[in-house]
């Protein structure tokens, strides 16, 4: 029995020493989790999370002082990915709007005051003093920090306009969201009676109300 106690003690001591040494020699620099989280976050330093920047947000996420829904531009998809990375439970229904949005300036309300341009952390708004301001659709990531800046309330977040370049077939088995307003307008007006597609009745739900500050335009429309 003595041999057993002795040998187990020695083994335990030996392995403990190995672990101690490996903790010193094989230690990982920095926090890989933080790098990973920073890569997931948009990186636009917009400040909508309430913290100084994306690096601080990553640190706060690791500490657990902020929830995974802290980043508005990331939306539900980002919150879900952060939850999976951190291993925390996440309820997708808790995040309100899954649709990506971008800012849109109502030209009629623009004063040319430059306040939104100075606020935007990724230079997504172009314009000059007393000149019209406009948002670059390809750059804006919908963080919303410019919305509060506009003195006339001329900026709103609208759904990203769809185009054939970004459309793709939906995944089988999932119910996709209803199509955009244009589609229903055409279908209601131009579909001739008596020519139904199969036995399905054409009584689809009305389109959802969109946040709009101006009549809907489309990416690529000429002025």
């Amino acid at each position, binding site marked *: 029995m003595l041999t057993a106690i002795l040998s187990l003690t020695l083994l335990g001591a030996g392995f403990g020493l190995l672990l101690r040494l490996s903790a010193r020699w094989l230690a990982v620099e920095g926090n890989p989790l933080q790098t990973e989280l920073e890569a997931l976050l*948009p*990186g*636009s*330093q917009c400040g909508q999370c309430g913290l100084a920047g994306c690096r601080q947000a990553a640190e706060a996420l690791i500490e657990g002082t902020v929830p995974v829904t802290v980043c508005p531009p990331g939306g539900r998809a980002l919150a879900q990915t952060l939850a999976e990375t951190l291993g925390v439970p996440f309820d997708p229904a808790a995040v309100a709007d899954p649709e990506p949005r971008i800012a849109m300036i109502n030209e009629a309300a623009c004063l040319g005051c430059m306040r939104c341009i100075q606020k935007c*952390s*990724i*230079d*997504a708004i172009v314009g000059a003093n007393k000149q019209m301001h406009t948002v670059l659709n*390809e*750059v804006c*990531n919908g963080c919303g920090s410019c919305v509060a800046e506009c003195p006339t309330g001329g900026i709103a977040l609208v759904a990203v306009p*769809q*185009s*054939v370049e*970004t*459309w*793709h*077939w*939906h*995944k*089988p*088995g999932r119910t996709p969201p209803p*199509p*955009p307003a*244009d*589609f229903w307008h*055409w*279908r209601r007006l*131009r*579909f*001739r009676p008596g*020519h*139904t*597609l*199969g*036995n399905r009745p054409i009584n689809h739900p009305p389109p959802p109300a969109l946040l709009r500050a101006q009549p809907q335009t*489309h990416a690529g429309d000429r002025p």
Partner: protein
Amino acid sequence: MKLFRIRGGVDVAHRKELSSEEPIMPLPLPSRLYVPLRQHGGAPAEPVVSVGDRVLKGQLLAAPQGSVSAPVHAPTSGEILNIGRQITAHPSAIPQPTIVLESDGCEEWVDLPPPIRDPFAASAASLATRVADCGIVGLGGAAFPTAVKLDAAARGTVDTLVINGAECEPYLTCDDRIMRERAGEIIDGVRIMAHALGATRIVIAIERNKPQALDTMTRAADTVGPEILIVAIPARYPMGSERHLVLLVTGREIPARRLPADVGVSVHNVATARAVHRAVRVGEPLISRVMTVSGGAVRRPRNLEVPIGALVCELLDAAGGTTEAPARLLAGGPMMGQPLHSLVVPVVKGTSGILALAASEIRTAPEQGCIRCGTCVSVCPCGLVPMEMAALIRHEKLEQAVAVGLHDCVACGSCAYACPSHIPLVQYFHYAKGRLKQLGHEQRRRDLARRLAASRAERLERIARAKREAVAARKAAAAAKKVAEAQAHGDGPVGSAAGS
């Protein structure tokens, strides 16, 4: 001629007898034509006319943009009513820029470019320019600008021109009728294209289920000499797929992610050849094409010569209307065609047919679990394992699906056709390809935002630093000025002990 082996493929019910004996009839001229600006692969064309303009038949409506693009011409004479957005036959039902033309019934032609007197003495560049100016795109369905293909092929070494007369999709008979009725025009167009490419060998592949077409084409080819070879290929889907046709007929396997031109072959549809003939010999741009209107729910299936921009409902009316509410309305064939969401959409250059299918013809059933029977593996002509890719995509492992060959899939639909569990395999692949593209797009946007944020921070820091330096410089200058003034006054009351 020796044919090489193609693995896989399915024996579909061809259902061509519905319309194969109907001669090509012109569609009665519609009162309004809706001409989309993007009817081809590549950038959409830009309008060169305005609302209210009067245009003549064949006049340029929209000019090509960039190197991969094609112009759009007026299908008839009339007045431009509107240039705006309309729903087209794109499956997304997203409105596309479209020119609405009200026809005046006169069918007055514009001054067409002069016919090229002797195409076989003309340069390849001039032929390609004529083909480009006439807006000719691949009429087999992909609608890729033909001139770009001719250019790219002529730059390399193309020795074989393969003409695709297979028409492997069920129901469609437009190519069959063109070959039976316009064989001479096709052969002439083929020879012109071969001359433009510098191809020494010409092969026209026609499926065995078209014996009359084989006969007329062979006789037409014989009149011009022995250089054109007409080949009867097995009537199996998807023999008309470009990659597999090249392998079947020439024995050359196009490497992954490469084009037929890389193995010295150029593939074009018979209808495209006919359009090239008309462009070169007559100067006529591509403003109409033959389309099949067929299906179990169509009263009188027909082959119609249709001006681009006619509405689907007008085509169905010309075919006698529908006998029942169609279970599926398609543009193209049942295997690779796109669903139509409305009858009020225009047909475009790439539309080969309109199908109104009855419920008994489409055999839908609810999706069941995969039983790993291996049928999809045995029918896939590309040698992929569709059930594995679909399983990975179902679990959102898109990168792994790419690793097992997602981008090598031509989306022919053989696997989904044969699957006993009715799994929509091709839809999984379409979804995965689209989602990967979307994720790549989002990643690029994030990278752009990161770069912009960093450069903005750097710019602000630079401005602040410059300001600080300017302030410091001003302070230093003011201090130096004070010292200098103090020195200047130093000779007076406040003297310097060490001065003078």
